[in-house]
C-alpha cells in the first residue's frame, strides 16, 4: 500500500512573531559586526589612540629621566594628569564625538544605503531595530573607549609617585561616567538621526558649537546641554587632591551629583523613547 503523500499545497502553520527582546538581540547581533568593521571604527581608533600614545610618550620620558611636570612650581602627579586627560580627551571630546558619529548613523545609514526597507519588512517591531542598533553602538564604543582609558590609567597614574591602588575606586567611577556619557549622547543623537534629514551636521553643531557656547553663557541656557550634567559628575570621579582643585575651579557652577544623575537618566529615557516612537511612526522616503 502506498504511503500517503503530503500535499505540497499544505500550508505550514504561521510562525509566531519573535518577541521584542529576541528581535532586539537579533538586530544587535547583526549590527555590531557592521559597526565594528566600518570606516568609523578607524576614526574611533584614532580618537582613543591619541591619549594612549601620549601616555606611552610620558612614560618613556619618565623612564629616560625627564623631570616631573610641574605647574607654578607645584609637582603634578600621575592621578592629576590622568584626571586632566580624562576630562579633555575623553569626556569633552571622544564621548560626544563618538556619540554623534555613531548615534546619528543608526537609522540614517540604513536610509542612505536604502536598506531600511529590508529591516522594516521583517516581522519585528520597528522600535526593536532602533534599540538593537543602539545597544550595538553602546557595546562597540564601550569596548573601544573603556580599554583605552584603562591603558592610559595604568600608564599615567604611577607617574610622580601616584598609587594604582589608591586611585582604583576613582577609575571605576570614571569608567561608569564614560559609559553613562556614551549612553546619553548616543540616545540623543539616535533621536536626531531618526528624526532629522542631515543628522550628522546637526549633531556636530550641537557638540562643537552649542555645548561649548552654552557653558560660557550666563543663566539657565547651560542646562540645555548634556556636558553641564556630565561635568556635575566629574568632581566625584576625579581625585580630590589640591592641584585638581585648580581644574575644578574652572567649573564653578555645577549641578549636584543627584541632580546630574536624575537629569541624565531623564534625557536618556526620553531620547530613546522619542527615537523609537519616531522610527515607528515615520515614513522614510528613499531617494532614487
Amino acid at each position: 500500500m502506498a504511503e500517503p503523500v503530503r500535499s505540497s499545497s499544505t500550508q505550514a502553520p504561521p510562525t509566531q512573531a519573535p518577541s521584542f527582546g529576541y528581535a532586539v538581540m537579533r538586530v544587535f547581533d547583526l549590527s555590531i559586526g557592521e559597526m565594528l568593521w566600518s570606516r568609523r571604527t578607524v576614526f574611533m581608533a584614532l580618537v582613543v589612540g591619541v591619549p594612549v600614545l601620549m601616555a606611552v610618550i610620558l612614560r618613556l620620558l619618565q623612564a629616560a629621566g625627564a623631570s616631573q611636570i610641574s605647574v607654578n612650581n607645584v609637582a603634578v602627579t600621575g592621578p592629576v594628569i590622568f584626571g586632566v586627560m580624562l576630562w579633555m580627551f575623553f569626556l569633552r571630546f571622544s564621548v560626544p564625538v563618538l556619540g554623534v558619529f555613531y548615534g546619528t548613523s543608526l537609522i540614517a545609514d540604513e536610509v542612505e544605503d536604502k536598506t531600511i526597507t529590508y529591516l522594516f519588512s521583517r516581522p519585528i517591531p520597528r522600535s526593536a531595530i532602533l534599540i538593537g542598533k543602539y545597544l550595538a553602538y553602546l557595546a562597540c564604543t564601550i569596548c573601544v573607549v573603556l580599554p583605552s582609558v584603562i591603558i592610559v590609567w595604568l600608564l599615567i597614574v604611577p607617574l610622580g609617585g601616584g598609587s594604582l591602588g589608591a586611585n582604583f575606586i576613582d577609575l571605576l567611577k570614571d569608567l561608569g561616567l564614560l559609559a553613562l556619557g556614551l549612553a546619553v549622547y548616543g540616545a540623543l543623537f539616535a533621536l536626531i538621526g531618526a528624526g532629522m534629514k542631515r543628522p550628522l551636521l546637526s549633531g556636530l553643531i550641537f557638540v562643537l558649537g552649542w555645548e561649548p557656547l552654552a557653558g560660557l553663557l550666563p543663566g539657565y541656557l547651560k542646562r540645555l546641554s548634556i556636558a553641564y550634567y556630565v561635568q556635575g559628575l566629574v568632581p566625584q570621579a576625579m581625585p580630590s587632591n589640591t592641584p585638581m582643585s585648580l581644574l575644578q575651579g574652572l567649573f564653578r557652577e555645577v549641578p549636584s551629583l543627584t541632580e546630574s544623575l536624575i537629569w541624565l537618566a531623564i534625557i536618556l529615557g526620553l531620547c530613546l523613547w522619542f527615537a523609537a516612537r519616531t522610527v515607528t511612526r515615520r515614513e522614510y522616503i528613499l531617494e532614487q
Partner: protein
Amino acid sequence: MTRGTRYFLAGSAFVAILGLGTGLVAYYNGGLPGVSRGSEADLAFLPAGAAAVGFADVRAIMNSEFRQKLRQVLPTGEELNHFKTELGVDIEHDIDTVAAAYLGGPTPFSGAVVIVRGRFNDVNIETIATQHGAVAEQYKNVRVLTFTHPVAAASVADTPLQPGEQIVDADVKAHPVPAVAFLQPGVLALGESDAVKKAIDAGESGEDLRKNTELKSLIDEVRGTGNAWFVGRTDMLAQHSGMPQEVVDHLPAVSLFAASVHVNGGLSGALRAEARDSKSAEQLRDVIRGALAAGKLVSGDNPKMDAMLSSLQITGSGNSVGLTFAVPPELLDLLNGLAAAHHLNDAPVKK
C-alpha cells in the same frame, strides 16, 4: 556575529579585565612591585586605633635632586655613619620606605611605632642590640628585641645590664621601653614595646589602619600627592600629647589634618585641615591670610623669597582649609650660596 567580531570583543574584554584586575590587586595589596612603591602594604602593620600616621618614600627622597642640593648646605652627618657602623644599616641606600603611627599613651613619647621597609642584616642588628641590653623573645611567631631603659639603667648602676636582666622599678615602668621586631624579611618595626606588639597584632589579625575609615579616606586623598605625607586626628593627639588643658582648649577647632610633601628638584607640598565647622574654617583661613601678608611685608624686595611666598596658596572650601607651597630649586641654590659665603667668613685668615 562573525569570528572577527567575537575576537575583537574578547580582546577588548581581556584588556579591560586585565587592567581592572591589576587595579584590584593594587587596591587590596597597596601598589605593585615595580609600578609604584605604595604605602598600602605598610599600613597593614599599623594599628587601627592610631591617632596620627606618617609615611615617607625614603628611597625617592634620597635620590631626589633636592636631597643632593641639601647635602651641599647641611653637614653630611656623622650620625648617619655611626648608624651604619653600629647597625649595619645605610639609611641612604638600605631603606626604601618608612611608615609611622602614633597610638597615644601615658607620655607623649610612648605609643609610637615605625615600620621600616628595606634591606637589613637581621643577624647583625640582633647581635648589636643584645650587646646593648636587648632581650630577644618570640611574640606571635615574630622575633622581638626589647631594650631595657637606658635612663633607668644608668640610674640603677654604672655597669650596663647583662642580656636577660630586667629592671623592676615603679619609675622605670612609666618610661617607654624601645623594641625592634622583625615582621617580615626586609620589614622592621621600631618603637615603644607595647606599640610594636600592637603592630604585630594588627598585621596578624587584619585589624589594621585600613579598617580606620576616617583616617584611611584622608590617607587615600593625600598619598598620591607626594612622596611623604602625614595625617592625624587633632583631638586624639591633643589628648595624648601631655599638653596643658589651657593649650588644648585654645587649639584651632580642627578635627583632622593632613600634610603631604613632594621632594624632587625642589620641594612642593600641601597642608590641609578639616575644621569642625565652616566658621572655624573661615577663622583659620583668616589666620593664614594674615601670616602670608606679614611674610610678604617682611620679605621686602627679595625676589626668591617673594617667589616662594607667591607659591603659597590658600585652597579648600566649606570645612576644609588648605595651603599649598613650593620651595623652588633656585631658593636652594641661594641657600647654598649663603652657606658658602658663611664658610668663607669663618675660614681662618692668614696674616
